[in-house]
């Protein structure tokens, strides 16, 4: 099996790009080319140890939590309009990710995907660009043997 971290992040980008209404999805960039909106920016985020079985040789098998940053960038003519759009795309992105069979397969029956939080960044004065960052946590078994040389 390929490195699960990369497999999850790659698939996550594909799923976000396919969300209805999303005009662009990019990974580890500051913004989408040509400032297309609505856009999703996926940052790889962090990977941390969750737990490991007793007696197992350290690092050969453990469960990891991967927490990418998924930021939806939209434009709105006022804060109320922007708020409704951020809620709309938060719902679509979270639903698409949680229901994706390939991502479910990648985390396996000993892992899972959970929706942890959604945070709206404070807008700048007079700005018409708004961002909501959705935090989804992917828990998956990590086998040392999955890593390439």
């Amino acid at each position, binding site marked *: 099996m390929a490195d699960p971290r990369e497999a999850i992040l790659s698939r996550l980008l594909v799923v976000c790009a396919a969300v209805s*209404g999303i*005009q662009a999805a*990019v990974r580890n*960039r*500051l*913004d*989408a*080319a*040509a*400032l*297309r*909106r*609505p856009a999703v920016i996926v940052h790889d985020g962090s990977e941390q140890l969750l737990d490991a079985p007793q007696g197992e040789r350290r690092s050969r098998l453990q469960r990891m939590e991967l927490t990418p940053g998924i930021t939806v960038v*939209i*434009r*709105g*003519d006022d804060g109320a*309009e922007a708020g*409704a*759009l951020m809620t*709309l*795309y938060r719902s679509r992105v979270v639903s698409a990710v949680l229901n994706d069979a390939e991502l479910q397969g990648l985390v396996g029956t000993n892992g899972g995907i959970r929706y942890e939080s959604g945070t709206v960044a404070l807008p*700048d*004065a*007079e*700005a*018409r*660009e708004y961002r909501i960052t959705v935090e989804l946590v992917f828990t998956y078994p990590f086998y040392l043997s999955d890593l390439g040389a």
Partner: protein
Amino acid sequence: MMIARLDAALAQTGQTVTLQRTSVDSASGAVTTGETLVCPAMVRASGPQDLEAGEVLSIRIIVSPTGLGSWGIPSRDDRIVIDGDESNLEQIVPIYWEGRLVRVNLLARG
């Protein structure tokens, strides 16, 4: 006199940019381009930048009231197209002299 001097400087050392107003579909968030204006401008990129669109961090632009004409002073988050790359206008600083608009300084990021 000040405006004429600025116009001459822009003609000599400036380049052409396109300013765009945008509108948003409140149901889908889709963005459409509204009124556009092609005008001469002085463009100076500053800060780290990437040749790929969407990664340039900071661009300073000067435009003249003559170039803006009836289009008027740009607004925050209007867009500017420079050499084919789009950026957002983040700062708009109109400068007046004796009560008359003589130039507009812009800061774009995108």
